[in-house]
């Protein structure tokens, strides 16, 4: 991920140690200076997100990374980035929680990530990689989207992906970065500029908020990403993201061999969420099983998307427990057979 970020033109990394993502900072500390960039181990997660803000306001590509408790601390700054319309990339390698929790893979930060996370009426674009390769690929996408929409982008991975080793194909380094005619680099040959989120006039504050909302609608219209796996004839759709989707995919494969018509739908953007696509799937299939490594968070988005047009079941394991594909296959299978029994009645 770190190498992908450097290749995506990121030249500023600011972070604070927290497991399970320290490899990112360690890699950056060695390779960012080689690329002519800056690495700083900040005094806190809070300071690191504001260093990102400072670099971003000058027009540079900047990022930070952390894990759940650290991301909570960064939320203040993420809100400021969103309010000031500044691009930034934030990697959250989620761990078990709440509180200090543990360092195992978990997906308990779905709500925090997809609902804005900090204070105020805003959204961050949330990308959920299902493999190390996709983490690499989405890193480039994250920087592009952040610049395109002048908005923070979060990559929501978890301890499982964070601690996995897989061969990856790295992208070619980005050669041309976008011009930023809004950046603050000293008022040379132009009037002075400012970047702010404080707008005391209520009408102007409302206008600014509507402007942000229009941008969010545009993102919803253009940037939804998902993967569909064996859905054509599926009688039961499993919905899962990130590493849970990877486990679910294994389970689906296994069940297909046994002749069960099950498929997988994997949202890649968690915000914007593929509501419309899931609603469309309900035209073909009347049963959905949401599987998450938490007690039911994306579940709410799936239910909203379906609005009662299909049955939704849930299987979740909070706290960092990661079931095997065999465990998940059992759950999916039993749900599948129950359906057949019900139909038979």
């Amino acid at each position, binding site marked *: 991920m770190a190498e992908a970020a450097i290749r995506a033109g990121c030249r500023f990394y600011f972070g604070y140690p927290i497991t399970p993502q320290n490899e990112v900072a360690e890699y950056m500390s060695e390779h960012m200076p080689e690329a002519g960039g800056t690495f700083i181990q900040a005094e806190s997660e809070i300071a690191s997100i*504001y260093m990102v803000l*400072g670099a971003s306001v000058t027009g540079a590509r900047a990022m930070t990374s952390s894990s759940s408790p650290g991301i909570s601390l960064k939320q203040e700054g993420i809100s400021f980035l969103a309010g000031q319309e500044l691009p930034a990339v934030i990697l959250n390698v989620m761990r078990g929680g709440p509180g200090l929790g543990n360092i195992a893979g978990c997906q308990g930060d779905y709500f925090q990530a997809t609902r804005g996370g900090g204070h105020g009426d805003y959204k961050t674009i949330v990308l959920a990689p299902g493999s190390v390769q996709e983490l690499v690929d989405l890193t480039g996408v994250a920087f592009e989207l952040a610049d395109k929409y002048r908005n923070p982008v979060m990559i929501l991975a978890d301890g499982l992906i964070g601690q996995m080793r897989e061969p990856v194909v790295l992208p070619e380094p980005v050669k041309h970065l976008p011009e930023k005619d809004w950046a*603050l680099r000293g008022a040379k040959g132009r009037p002075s500029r400012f970047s702010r989120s404080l707008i005391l006039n209520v009408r102007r504050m409302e206008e600014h908020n509507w402007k942000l909302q229009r941008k969010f609608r545009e993102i919803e219209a253009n940037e939804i990403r998902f993967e569909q796996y064996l859905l054509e004839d599926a009688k039961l759709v499993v919905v899962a993201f990130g590493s849970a989707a990877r486990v679910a995919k294994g389970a689906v494969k296994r069940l297909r061999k046994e002749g069960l018509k099950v498929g997988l739908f994997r949202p890649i953007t968690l915000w914007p969420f593929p509501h419309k696509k899931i609603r469309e799937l309900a035209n073909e299939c009347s049963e959905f099983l949401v599987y998450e490594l938490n007690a039911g968070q994306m579940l709410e988005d799936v239910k909203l998307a379906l609005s009662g047009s299909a049955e939704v079941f849930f299987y979740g394991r909070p706290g960092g427990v990661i079931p095997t594909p065999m465990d998940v296959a059992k759950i999916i299978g039993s749900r599948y057979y129950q359906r057949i029994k019900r139909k038979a009645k």
Partner: protein
Amino acid sequence: MKKIYGRPKYLKPRKFHYCAGCGHSLVHKMLMELVDELDIADRVIGVAPAGCAVLAYDYMDIDIVESAHGRGPAVATGIKRSVPNLVVINYQGDGDLAAIGTAESIHAASRGEQIMTVFINNGIYGMTGGQMAPTTLEGMRATTAPKGRDPRREGYPLDLSSLLAQIPGVVYAERVSVSTPRGIRQTKKALEAGLRCQLDGEPGLALIEVLSMCPTNWKMSPLDSCKWMDEVMSKKFQVKVLVDRRTKAIKKAASGNVD
């Protein structure tokens, strides 16, 4: 006829929103005079604090980014590391620098970030309505210390600048006051020294603490405020150079070329 005094070129022709007798407008004016005198308008950037001076961009005609409360030194760090040629002015108040942003203040200093922090110390939270600050003096009343600050109850006033001055990453630290014409002149000299640290490439942070009046929340007249500052506040927070580790300025002084 020769014009010998006027509004600084980079001070926007706008009426200050600050209360009568407040020190912010004096410091704003001097900073903008210096931006002109040092000819750095095209490469200076300000970090505005949460607090009364949050609207600094309404007055200072330079690039300005707003910061959250206490985070100015981190924002300034990101800016300076990204564009080292910029002259970065990080403007903060006492609650900002010495309470919520203590960590950011200390660590920007410890990293020796080449920025200038202007620390406005009026011993009280101004914008939020007169609550106790880390720098509120013993016995001084605040809306959250209605009986006056009692160290047994509210703890002691914190002199963070003196602590910061002990950090090797601070190349220059001076405390000044804007309660008298003499103090104002010295403040301008100190601010210039602070800015020159960046122009000279001094390897560290410059800190200029400005003791400043807040008549509204002190519940005093502007004149009494100045008097109180001279007679009481500057006894606890002494006006002086706290540390001078400048290498280039010292070399210049040695060669007789004093600024």
